[in-house]
């Protein structure tokens, strides 16, 4: 397992870091506040997963990203090894999926993995 190491030839200046953190937080807070009053009542539209996704990649009916061209992509990620996920995106009103590798350790996919494992055991 190889980790991506970020070189630190010069130490990050703590004053700069604090300043940056403050600006980042302000931006997040502002973003949140600006949308708090919006849209809350609006129902979630189009959040159904399209059926062709369930049919798997073999259908060939949708565009694949380049993720599937490189097998070892997840290899250099933290946690080691990747889980292949399909990212659902909208191009205009068209739904598309694209293949992407997510590290195993990522909480995002852990839930699914556990469930899958549980299902297998059954």
């Amino acid at each position: 397992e190889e980790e991506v190491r970020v070189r630190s030839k010069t130490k990050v200046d703590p004053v700069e870091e604090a300043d940056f953190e403050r600006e980042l937080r302000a931006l997040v807070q502002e973003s949140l506040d600006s949308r708090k009053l919006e849209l809350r009542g609006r129902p979630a539209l189009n959040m159904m997963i399209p059926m062709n996704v369930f049919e798997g990649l073999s259908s060939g009916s949708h565009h694949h990203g380049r993720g599937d061209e490189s097998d070892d992509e997840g290899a250099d990620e933290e946690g080691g090894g990747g889980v292949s996920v399909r990212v659902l995106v909208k191009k205009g009103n068209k739904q598309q999926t694209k293949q992407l590798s997510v590290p195993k350790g990522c909480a995002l996919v852990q839930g699914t993995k556990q469930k899958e494992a549980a299902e297998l055991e059954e």
Partner: protein
Amino acid sequence: DNFEFGKTGGDFATEHACRYCGVSNPACVVRCNVASCRKWFCNSRGNTSGSHIVNHLVRAKHKEVCLHKDSPLGETILECYNCGCRNVFLLGFISAKTESVVVLLCREPCLSVNALKDMNWDLSQWCPLIDDRCFLQWLVKIPSEQEQLRARQISAQQINKVEELWKTNPDASLEDLEKPGVDDEPQPVVLKYEDAYQYQNVFAPLVKLEADYDKMMKESQSKDNVTIRWDIGLNKKRIAYFVFPKEDNELRLVPGDELRLRYSGDAAHPAWQSVGHVIKLTAQEEVALELRASQGVPVDVNHGFSVDFVWKSTSFDRMQGAMKTFAVDETSVSGYIYHHLLGHEVEVQVVRNSLPRRFGAPGLPELNASQVFAVKSVLQKPVSLIQGPPGTGKTVTSAAIVYHMAKQGQGQVLVCAPSNVAVDQLAEKISATGLKVVRLCAKSREAVSSPVEHLTLHYQVRHLDTSEKSELHKLQQLKDEQGELSSGDEKKYKALKRATEREISQSADVICCTCVGAGDPRLANFRFRQVLIDESTQATEPECLIPLVLGVKQVVLVGDHCQLGPVIMCKKAARAGLAQSLFERLVLLGVKPFRLQVQYRMHPSLSEFPSNSFYEGTLQNGVTINERQSSGIDFPWPVPNRPMFFYVQMGQEEISASGTSYLNRTEAANVEKIVSTFLKCGVTPNQIGVITPYEGQRAYIVNYMSRNGALRQQLYKEIEVASVDSFQGREKDYIILSCVRSNEHQGIGFLNDPRRLNVALTRARYGIVILGNPKVLSKQPLWNSLLTHYKEHECLVEGPLNNLKQSMVQFQKPKKIYS
């Protein structure tokens, strides 16, 4: 620290190369999707606390990105799958409960939409797109060790500088940072100057920096989707009312500012735009804009307008002009003043004018001993400083000086101050002595209402009642009715008006205007031997110079260098010393100010701390406890006869909606309770002032009181809630100060400036309540001694307002805080 930053490296020829470091691997870069930007950045951290792309987004306040076409996901603008929101600071991934399918979803509001919870998605594992100041590495790769080594090593400082540069020049490259002039710190101000050319060489670049910054700030303040309320003024001109939000330290509109209002047009209306002047700001923070042209205004439309700031260089041009005159025109100031201002050693000179028998003036209150001493001394000196601590009768003293100067027969006296409010106050007092006063206003302010309208030049021109002026009157009437004159009539009108203006101005004893106003072309041929500048500690040196270079032989600078100084927006210019006033430099050169020593404003309990902390204990009380007793006001002061307390607050500070300011909800709620208690016991709204250093808190308090106030809404609307800075020079019977800051680790920001604290503490006549967190504030030495002062007098309290108890809260040891 020994590491040499590589100056080359990185592949900058590729369009999608990271603009910081040159990394150009398509899997590692994203494009900023802001239309005016469209720059590419990589996801490497390099030597900074966040990755390059996150650094850019934060520093430029940009929020949208697009992936590269050759990246795993292809050319994709990252957006919420549900609502389309593209703000990357809100986006994160969720996965389906059973399938290996993920989508981007925004945190607000989609993540909390109930309908989604019932669907096939697992919302509990929402995974933010930006984590640990980096984009998710599996979405945007981090460049390899090899790639990073090849890239340019950019420091956080360089990033900040280039981002700053991009604001004015979006195509600038990092190399431009090394060009002379861009990054150089300007030459700082000094105490003494060889000659006026050296003086100009130091100050001209600082004024230019401030002008450029001001221009950039103001022109970037355009607002779209502005809603307008239309009205018609007494002069039949169209007035547009709208809200134009402002932020801490940033644009503050003042009457006289020029704005452009635009409407892009629709099926029923052609595109339209017009420039106008701000004539007032309402209590609800609405701007009233008087439009220059009344033709074609889409008054039946209320929504969808855009507002731009029209920047004017006038004030900066006049400063530059004054410095040039100071250098090239030998008659601009007397030889003595020339050398004195430059800090040269000069022999003491006495002005040989006959002194009056008594130093007071008709129409003014009797002067006290320190005021008489100041007037008498000033009249005999060519250059003098008067320091007027809060409430010590600065204006009356100034008016008395002007009265005696005018009686000396040296010609007209010029009286200036940096702010219009101060000029108006002074003009009123001087006029009360019986002198003939002309208040010269900027043309753009002629529509702005003024308490001394009858003294203004434009009013006097209109109301001059002699038969020979009837021609001007006729033309004026015609112009008012028709809005325009024929070109021949217009010429005649202008010539007549100019002649009348000159005549009225020349016959005045005293001309009053702002410092910048002294550069008005209408005064171009006037000479003033005697000049008094009030509030001079709030003016920059070049600003002060404008009224001086009209031939000054005797100058009086009035001010208080222990209160707030001039506001400089450009940090570089401020660092180099533009924020230091001429008054302060003269003090540093050894000129001893005459200090007015008796204060007539504050209850003696309130003046004690400011006197000891800012004026070496020299401030005496001209009012007694009895004169400042709030009879009939049953307010729960913890100590009778000591109308003050520090109300301990432990509520959290928050970043305000604009993201650039702070607020504190608990303090705001308690401000409302205190205000309501004052009102219930018979205090009127105009007697109360609420001061807070933060715009976020100011807006929150105004809102909170009008929504949650226990009494009639209208009462709260009439209460002034404003920043410390906007209360300078003024007073209220009762002051409530909300400090806001309450955090363990960060500083206390604005409150750190002792001069600001001085101003905040010295506005109240009858009583003051301070709300703040002693644990946080006590770290700063001055606040620590203020808290100790309140504690020693049993005025440090906590608990409900109707049952205040001594607070036992522990203070922290005061630390030296770097400023």
